[in-house]
């Protein structure tokens, strides 16, 4: 892998001259095309994210009914559960970018992975803190070391490790390779999070919403929850796309400055 990485095109040569066309997967590798598509998609992503999140959170906070035994504390669920979904989704996206980076040396995948990391870590932190705020009044404890809580904490540390690793090398390509390997090794944690509540007895309750069965949640609580989930999903996309646009422009700028310094 080391020998082939030296053959990989350097950022300056791939990104500065825009190449026309390309094969299926490399269609979006052209940063100029990515910037054009992303600039057009950005207002829609941001708009849906803001609208759905605000409607869903307001609905959950003010109109959704209180739970018969948890009272109003159940409203924390409308933040906690979508944040938990996005924490796992973000890591899967990170792993997908890492595969594209390691196998196809996709130039945008490296940048995307570096930008997904902080956003995913943000959603994981939100999930952990809101879970703690929910656990104290309901369970009677801020934190317990059961399989679900521990595996999500591991996910948070994986995100932090990835963030640090991709930025730790002088040669960014080495950082991207190391980060991609860490992300893929850590991906085994995602199914562990998902099934921890079924495989082991935990204090955390099992999932209320599954692909196979009917949700064990009243419809009046389910709708705002799904609304926030849509809002958070679009917020994740909008944030990553905005950060990725900035990263592509910054990289192009570095390439231009380097080419200018070399040519002058």
């Amino acid at each position, binding site marked *: 892998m080391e020998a082939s990485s030296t053959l990989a095109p350097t950022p300056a040569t791939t990104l500065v001259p825009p190449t026309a066309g390309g094969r299926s997967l490399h269609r979006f590798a052209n940063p100029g095309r990515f*910037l*054009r598509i992303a600039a057009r998609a950005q207002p829609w992503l941001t708009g849906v994210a803001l609208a759905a*999140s605000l409607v869903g*959170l307001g609905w959950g*906070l003010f109109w959704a009914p*209180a739970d018969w035994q948890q*009272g*109003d*504390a159940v*409203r*924390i669920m409308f*933040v*906690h559960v979508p*944040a938990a979904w996005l924490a796992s989704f973000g890591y899967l996206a990170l792993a997908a970018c890492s595969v594209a980076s390691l196998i196809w040396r996709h130039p945008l995948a490296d940048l995307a992975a570096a930008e997904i990391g902080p*956003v995913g870590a*943000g959603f994981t*932190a*939100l999930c952990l*803190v*809101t879970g703690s*705020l*929910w656990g*104290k*009044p309901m369970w009677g404890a801020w934190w317990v070391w059961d399989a679900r809580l521990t595996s999500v904490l591991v996910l948070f540390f994986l995100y932090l490790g990835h963030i640090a690793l991709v930025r730790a090398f002088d040669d960014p390509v080495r950082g991207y390779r190391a980060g991609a390997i860490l992300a893929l090794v850590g991906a085994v944690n995602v199914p562990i999070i998902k099934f921890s509540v079924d495989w082991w007895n935990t204090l955390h309750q099992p999932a209320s919403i599954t692909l196979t069965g009917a949700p064990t949640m009243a419809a009046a609580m389910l709708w705002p929850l799904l609304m926030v989930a849509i809002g958070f999903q679009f*917020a994740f996309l909008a*944030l990553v796309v*905005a*950060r990725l*646009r*900035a990263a592509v*422009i*910054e990289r*192009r*700028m570095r390439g*231009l*400055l380097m080419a200018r310094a070399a040519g002058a």
Partner: protein
Amino acid sequence: MTHLPYIAGAYGLTLVLAVGFGLSAAIRLSRARKRLAAIDPRAGR
């Protein structure tokens, strides 16, 4: 509303994170675009 401090904490943190991440992304993007336009006016599409 029962458990108000916990609920306020959860929704407050959501707001803080949303504003923080949103603003930082917007500022970083606009700054990058301005700097690129200053170096290479052709790129300011």
